[in-house]
């Protein structure tokens, strides 16, 4: 593992993502990606009494699913990185308390999962055989904490986005059949002064572009090197903004999500 350029890490023996698992809520189950999820729930509560408990259950079951699918015993997984959107990361810390794996709680809001993947990969290459990373969010618990009660009769503007109900987990191993994590470019915080909490795509797009440019510069690669460049969900507006900003920077890519 060595650092190249300004913000990028290059792995000498790239860690492999050996197994992944995901469980999602009702809205995601009706979306175009539904067939790729391991389990689709039709009830936001999933038999629990509160949304927070339900989110905890979702991340717990997702992590258990990832471990059992990977075929490794949970004892052989040496570290776990997990986070969510709630105060003090209660969903992941309560959900994973029975896991018996050294736990590192992380918070990166929308970037939590990639942050977890990065740290897991670094940990795996430096000292561990298998590590695990997970992230969860729940539409109802996020609305409750950050916005308004669900039953409040207000209108959402067309630029507002929808928090995912669901969790994802990945087991990272020192050796495996891939896909491999070969490089990590950690992005900077780029604040272009967007104050509208209902336009997150516009707030995040400049940071996505900055990281992308930095990655290409550090690795000396051309955007055409990649079959697809995938960002987190910026929504229609954010995607449109990122595409146009990238064109201004003369970055042409094939697919961008």
């Amino acid at each position, binding site marked *: 593992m060595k650092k190249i350029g300004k913000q990028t890490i290059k792995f000498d023996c790239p860690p492999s993502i050996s197994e992944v698992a995901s469980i999602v809520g009702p809205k995601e189950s009706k979306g175009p990606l539904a067939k790729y999820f391991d389990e689709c729930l039709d009830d936001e509560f999933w038999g629990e009494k509160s*949304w927070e408990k339900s989110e905890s259950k979702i991340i717990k079951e997702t992590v258990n699913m990832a471990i059992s699918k990977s075929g490794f015993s949970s004892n052989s997984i040496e570290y776990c990185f997990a986070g969510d959107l709630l105060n003090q990361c209660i969903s992941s810390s309560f959900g994973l308390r029975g896991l018996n794996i050294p736990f590192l709680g992380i918070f990166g809001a929308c970037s939590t999962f990639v942050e977890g993947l990065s740290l897991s990969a670094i940990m795996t290459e430096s000292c561990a055989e298998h590590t695990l990373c997970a992230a969860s969010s729940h539409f109802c618990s996020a609305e409750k904490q950050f916005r308004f*009660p669900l039953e409040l*009769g*207000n*209108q959402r503007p067309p630029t507002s986005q929808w928090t995912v109900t669901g969790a994802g987990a990945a087991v990272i191993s020192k050796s495996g059949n891939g896909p491999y994590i070969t490089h990590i470019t950690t992005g900077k915080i780029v604040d272009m002064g967007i104050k509208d909490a209902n336009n997150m795509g*516009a707030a995040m797009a*400049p940071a996505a572009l900055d990281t992308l440019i930095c990655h290409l510069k550090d690795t000396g690669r051309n955007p055409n090197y990649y079959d697809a460049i995938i960002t987190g969900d910026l929504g229609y507006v954010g995607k449109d903004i990122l595409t146009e900003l990238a064109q201004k920077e003369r970055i042409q890519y094939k697919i961008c999500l």
Partner: protein
Amino acid sequence: MNPLDSKKDYQDFVNKKSPNSPIIKNCFNAFWVGGLICSIGQIIMSICKSRGISQEISGTIVSIILIALSAFLTGLNIFNKIGKFAGAGSLVPITGFANSIVSPAMEYKSEGYIMGVGGKMFTVAGPVLVFGISTSIIVGIIYLIFNTQSITLV
């Protein structure tokens, strides 16, 4: 010109890119739903008055019935759908105020009755109460000052 040069340039760029709310459709829906709620209120008022109840008490009865109705519909998960459709049409009449108190009460029930329902019930309606009551106190003081100097305002 690069929109990332300054915060203002970027804000202008984002404004150009972001779709606006469909304001004519929203206004139209708010107008007829708000009108309908007020008409229901007027019908209740007329019924009460035709039964010989005074104007003042009839008004109170209208408020009570509309608040009860709105709270009931909030509990049935129907009011938020009306609100999503009608916006200010259902929010501005007393129905919206009832909804803004019942919805946090429901939301925070999972945190218990004292600290949850009791403590969080006014998270949405709180500012309206604080500034509404503060304003009425200030108006009251002004009225008192002018009134003692025998200047009639009304």
